[in-house]
């Protein structure tokens, strides 16, 4: 390194220094929005902050692929969204026997407890499909254009528009219908399922339950 081309290296590192400094301060300024988007995807604080931090690291590692002058916020949100789905896919692979539990990751059991403290709208949001929820949040709360939201969600602009419209309609139906919220409002079903699993775990003699230790919440 030192011998070959000190001049060029000097110029490059000087340039990199300035660019990286700017990039990092822009990252810093966008952290609040990353946290907000992450929270809306995961539905819980701890999982959301883990996700937002993973996003920061990924963004920093990939900073060379960011095109200056383009929308950094949308670029970061794309990374965060990819990370969210890939984390969840990994959770599925690790726990294929209990998809419900995997769906609650990141967040685990806290999701249910947390949802009891949420507003009706926040709970209704959890009932929407992932696709509808993310589209509605990006456009309706995050202030993204349909075009940017489409880029973040990797789909057509028309698809985003129809997802947002369907999400809005569904939210009204959920909020004003009340029935659909029951499952989210009261964690009865999930608790019953966990209780059954816990009982099965207790019944199984030690060492024979192959689904036992890993999944069981402490």
């Amino acid at each position: 390194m030192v011998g070959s081309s000190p001049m060029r290296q000097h110029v490059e590192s000087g340039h990199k220094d300035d660019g990286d400094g700017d990039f990092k301060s822009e990252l810093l300024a966008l952290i609040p929005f990353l946290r907000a988007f992450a929270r809306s995807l995961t539905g819980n604080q701890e999982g959301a902050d883990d996700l937002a931090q993973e996003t920061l690291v990924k963004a920093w590692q990939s900073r060379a692929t960011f095109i200056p002058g383009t929308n950094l916020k949308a670029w970061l949100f794309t990374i965060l969204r990819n990370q969210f789905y890939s984390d969840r896919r990994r959770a599925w692979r690790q726990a294929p026997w209990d998809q419900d539990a995997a769906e609650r990751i990141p967040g685990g059991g806290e999701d249910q407890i947390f949802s009891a403290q949420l507003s009706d709208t926040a709970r209704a949001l959890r009932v929407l499909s992932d696709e509808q929820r993310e589209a509605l949040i990006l456009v309706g709360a995050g202030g993204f254009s349909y075009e940017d939201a489409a880029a973040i969600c990797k789909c057509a602009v028309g698809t985003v528009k129809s997802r947002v419209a369907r999400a809005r309609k569904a939210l009204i139906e959920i909020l004003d219908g009340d029935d659909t919220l029951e499952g989210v409002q009261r964690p009865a079903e999930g608790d019953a399922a966990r209780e059954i699993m816990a009982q099965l775990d207790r019944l199984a003699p030690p060492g024979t339950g192959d689904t036992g230790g890993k999944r069981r919440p402490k």
Partner: protein
Amino acid sequence: MQWDNAVSNEEKPNEKARAIRARQRAIGRELRRMYDDVAQEPVPDDFLDLLRKIDDAEDARTGKKVS
């Protein structure tokens, strides 16, 4: 719920449409409020620590002086 009553039976369709739009707006405000609430929280120290670590790692990698 009061909205349900308002638009039930023989209300004019445009009144119903107006009520739905009002409801949409209220939900929209609530969504933005939820999002903004998080966005306005102070950034937890974990995040600042993380950025500092990135800095340190970068300094170590490039062998740059810490200014």
